[in-house]
């Protein structure tokens, strides 16, 4: 069991989402930084898609009432376990009664905004439409269909043979973060400029030459009016050549849509399933996690890319996850345990 002492700004139960229901208007949702949640889950011996916590902007305090193993990924917000600093992308044992505390968001260059906590066995909330993710907008799934509050108690899932092999009480160990594995950029870039690879969208050609050039050349600021549904950006006005209105169509996370006012919005994991604004570009799948970590006021630089580069980036990311998965499968501490006996 985990007890929420302070939930922070926005903490919710998330897994990798509920695909399969978009044609009924139900968004898959799930962890915005799915790679971070996947890594944290692997580190505690879970399948990548087990339910964990997505913590936004730190300031969160949780108490464990049973012995277990945890891993924190994404940004760590100077996390401490009973006052002792812990590192992100590490797997470590936790004893009943211990408290995990993430600090308030303070400015430090390169800091991201989301942390993911995985616990051995996962957070045991009942799956709804095949997923434990909280749909915050529609109010279902996760823990009572809402963000966590002070005093909430979250049950943990049963541990399996895989967890026993991992040896919950065993030593701590860590893996390289995505940044240090060459998937991201230098995490201490003082300018807070985030590079994102983008494919031209279906309506790219309907924008003026000036707008098309501005998309690639300008920097775009993430305004505070941004959330899990979408990031509203600020920059030059992107004008479209006179063209008739679009009919509603399916949209996906990463779509850069441009409403009539000319300021783009990047759709995020909780965006609605259909939309009608012209799409000047789409951020590639492999870069969506960078966007999930991007703080408000960060600046984005869009880089034109092609399908081959997008596929390569995706394969690199899969290889990173696969490598961690293989490493975890190879772990076997049962002998170490026997010696101790």
């Amino acid at each position, binding site marked *: 069991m985990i007890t929420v002492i302070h939930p922070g700004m926005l903490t919710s139960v998330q897994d990798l989402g509920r695909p399969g229901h978009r044609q009924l208007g139900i968004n898959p949702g799930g962890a915005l930084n799915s790679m971070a949640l996947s890594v944290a889950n692997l580190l505690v011996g879970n399948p990548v898609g087990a339910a964990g916590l997505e913590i936004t902007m730190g300031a969160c305090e949780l108490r464990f009432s049973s012995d277990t193993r945890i891993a924190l990924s994404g940004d760590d917000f100077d996390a401490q376990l009973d006052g002792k600093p812990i590192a992100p992308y590490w797997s470590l044992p936790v004893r009943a009664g211990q408290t995990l505390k993430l600090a308030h968001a303070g400015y430090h260059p390169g800091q991201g905004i989301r942390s993911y906590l995985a616990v051995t066995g996962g957070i045991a909330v009942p799956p709804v439409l095949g997923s434990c993710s909280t749909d915050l907008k*529609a109010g279902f799934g996760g823990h009572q269909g809402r963000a966590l509050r002070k005093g909430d108690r979250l049950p943990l899932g049963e541990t399996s043979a895989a967890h026993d092999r991992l040896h919950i009480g065993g030593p701590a160990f860590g893996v390289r973060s995505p940044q240090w594995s060459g998937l991201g950029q230098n995490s201490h870039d003082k300018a807070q400029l985030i590079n994102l690879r983008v494919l031209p*969208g279906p309506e790219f050609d309907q924008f003026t030459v000036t707008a098309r050039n501005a998309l690639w050349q300008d920097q775009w600021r993430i305004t505070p009016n941004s959330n899990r549904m979408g990031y509203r950006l600020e920059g030059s006005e992107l004008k479209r050549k006179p063209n008739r209105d679009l009919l*509603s169509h399916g949209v*996906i996370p990463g779509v850069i849509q441009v409403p009539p006012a000319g300021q783009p919005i990047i759709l995020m994991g909780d965006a609605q399933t259909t939309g009608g604004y012209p799409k000047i570009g789409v951020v590639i799948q492999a870069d969506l996690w960078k966007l999930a970590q991007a703080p408000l006021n960060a600046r984005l630089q869009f880089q034109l890319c092609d399908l081959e580069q997008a596929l390569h980036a995706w394969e690199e990311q899969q290889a990173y996850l696969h490598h961690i998965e293989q490493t975890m499968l190879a772990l076997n501490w049962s002998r170490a345990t026997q010696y101790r006996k």
Partner: protein
Amino acid sequence: MTLPKIHLLGDAAVLCKLPSPATLTQQQRIWSLAEQAAAWPEVSEVVPGMNNLTLILHRPVVDLDSVSQRILDAWPDIDADHVAGRDIEIPVVYGGSDGPDLDFVARHTGLSSKEVIAHHSEGHYIVYFIGFMPGFAYMGGLDPALATPRQDEPRMSIPAGSVGIGGEQTGIYPLASPGGWQIIGRTAAPLFDPRQNPPTLLRPGDRVRFTVERNAK
């Protein structure tokens, strides 16, 4: 034969658009193509839109031409009558606190409130696609005499079950939500229940009738 135009939508989705104008026959063929494409191994999800279809893939597209070819090869054999919609009746309490904008719609259209209710409940509607929020049906078939622009300032919250008119469309809010449609009534029908399978009352292709329910209050 009008062929769909196929665009990349990022690295792992494609958008197939049909030429204008949107017709019911074209939309019926979109439902059929959606059903067929949902079974293709590379396709993870299908999202019918208005006169278009989005296919979401399991992994990034290696070669757009092969995906396009598969769609274009399937298209000529797509049967418009394949998806059999169901007949769904939705009981509505019109006016009063359930339909605060009924009088506004009456004034705007030059009809009496009774006439607005009669026109709306006598209509035959078809669900073209579902989007915006879980179970929200975009329906064709609103009597053009009832067309009323959306409100200048959207309301902060519209109760679940509200039946509204927005421009030339009518729809029902399955969940409480901010919204700018003119609300003429409310239904107790369960439009979205995540514990049910399927979780939404309406699906693309369904034929919808609104019936007048007396206000019990």
